[in-house]
């Protein structure tokens, strides 16, 4: 088993009248299977399984980023029922523990999208 330390900070000086400065960190115990930080070009209108439905229960911590910087194309995040629940625009990212019995699919919408991704299965 191994340790992964994620930290998320959210800051803003104008979202509300009070400055926002939120920081959260955790120490995650992870094991196999895992995929280190990787890049993938997804052709427009096609999909890529970041994490294929494992058929077993559990979680995997997934990082996925739309690494495009200047296009209008987006990365749609989909569940196992092929329903898009969220969209990543240029340089936007997500980090969350997916249910590995559902997996995660990313579809490139509008044109080619380069994603950066990684995952670590919860031990």
């Amino acid at each position, binding site marked *: 088993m191994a340790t992964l330390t994620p930290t998320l900070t959210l800051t803003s000086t104008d979202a509300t009248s009070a400055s926002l400065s939120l920081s959260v960190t955790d120490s995650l115990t992870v094991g196999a299977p895992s995929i*280190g930080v990787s890049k993938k070009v997804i052709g427009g209108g096609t999909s890529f399984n970041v994490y294929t439905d494992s058929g077993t229960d559990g979680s995997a911590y997934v990082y996925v980023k739309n690494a495009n910087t200047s296009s209008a194309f987006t990365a749609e995040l989909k569940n196992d*029922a092929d329903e898009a629940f969220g969209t990543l625009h240029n340089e*936007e*990212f*997500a980090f*969350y523990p997916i249910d590995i019995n559902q997996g995660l699919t990313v579809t490139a*919408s509008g044109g080619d999208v380069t994603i950066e991704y990684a995952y670590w299965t919860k031990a």
Partner: protein
Amino acid sequence: MAIITPTLTLTSNASTATTDPGPLSIALSLAATDALTVDSVQAKVVTVSATHAILWDASAISDGTATAGTDGGFVYLKNQHATVNVYIGFGSSAALQADDNTTRLLTLKPGEFAWLPWDLTADLIVDASDDGTDALETWYFDRG
């Protein structure tokens, strides 16, 4: 319009480290950041139970006219409880405790957090393994 700056760092030691060894043979230090233009912010702390409920009502935010990929925003979730598992689903309100539940998007163990986009095309549902007072902190940032 306002700007929210989310920054994620992922770090781990090399697998050969004697203290807190990481998953890879090399140390990991990843940083991702972005500048999100938002037009509204909502935050709340939610008491959870083993009875499912709507966490964020899509139609209440978008008037039921959301377009995936255009509307929506980002959701931050943190399980603040010491023992209760919190389940988050996407779609029609339904129990989320069962494994291999197609509505369930994710499970937050105690102390875990999530940052993910949400398109407002269906509600976000919350359920839990047990009662948990003020167990879930959540924010919604609507794209501007």
